[in-house]
């Protein structure tokens, strides 16, 4: 029985994927003792992107700090193809950022990006393949307050 393991970003425990008798399973496992804690029916795949475009390098004095996250829930069946789902998420999130901030920002967006998997369904309240959620936080200067925007949509 082959296992695929990802670290649970919410707790530091391990998310374990395996197939038994043709049925895929996702389990949460203690990172130290390797004992199973509970079965998971969905995990969140979160893609984070950050732009920190300081005043010194920004053109025409338009600095920008931007945080973007795209989230989707993966069932055990979807987990084995998580790389493919990640690419879809990347496309959706960059399109969302381009909608609000323009194409140039998208160009630098992938310079600082990361992925995590979480056992807690925080953003996506239900596990649907076609549902994804996003959140943007931004500010243009240190003096102004950060603004945010979020939503959930069908792909």
């Amino acid at each position: 029985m082959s296992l695929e393991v990802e670290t649970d970003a919410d707790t530091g425990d391990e998310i374990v994927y395996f197939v038994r008798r043709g049925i895929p399973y996702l389990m949460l496992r203690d990172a130290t003792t390797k004992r199973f804690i509970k079965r998971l029916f969905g995990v969140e795949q979160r893609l984070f992107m950050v732009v920190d475009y300081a005043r010194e390098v920004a053109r025409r004095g338009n600095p920008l700090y931007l945080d973007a996250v795209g989230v989707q829930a993966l069932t055990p069946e979807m987990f084995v193809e998580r790389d493919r789902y990640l690419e879809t998420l990347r496309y959706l999130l960059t399109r969302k950022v381009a909608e609000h901030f323009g194409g140039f920002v998208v160009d630098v967006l992938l310079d600082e990006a990361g992925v995590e998997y979480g056992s807690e369904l925080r953003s996506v309240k239900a596990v649907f393949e076609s549902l994804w959620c996003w959140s943007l936080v931004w500010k243009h200067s240190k003096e102004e307050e950060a603004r945010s925007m979020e939503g959930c949509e069908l792909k």
Partner: protein
Amino acid sequence: MSVAKVDVDIKLKPEAFKLWVESRKWIIQGLGYRLEKVNVKETEHGYHVWFKIYETIPDDALAVLQFLLGDDQKRCQYNFLRAEANVFKQFNALFNNKYKKPGNAITLKKLIIDTLDHVIDYVRSHIKGG
């Protein structure tokens, strides 16, 4: 329950790292919190550490706690902004992996640089020849 996530960007000898973890426990307990569990994952450049705390801590206090525990300062800076915007929960990230652009992605910048490299190589080879 709350989880304080700390990104340590340095490799330490096992004894030193163990002492570091103990000192973080002193900080947490000194601030009046009860520590339930510590999880550690070794990464390429250091460690990711999760401190599970019994109490439910507000976002801004959790962001400060992570700073006090020695979290990466750039990460702390982002976290303070996120706590200010009330989106800290979604953004208190500790990446499994950095996202890698697809291998065959060609950006305009890369295309220009590759073309210039070819031109320079061509010119050099012809200067040498003749």
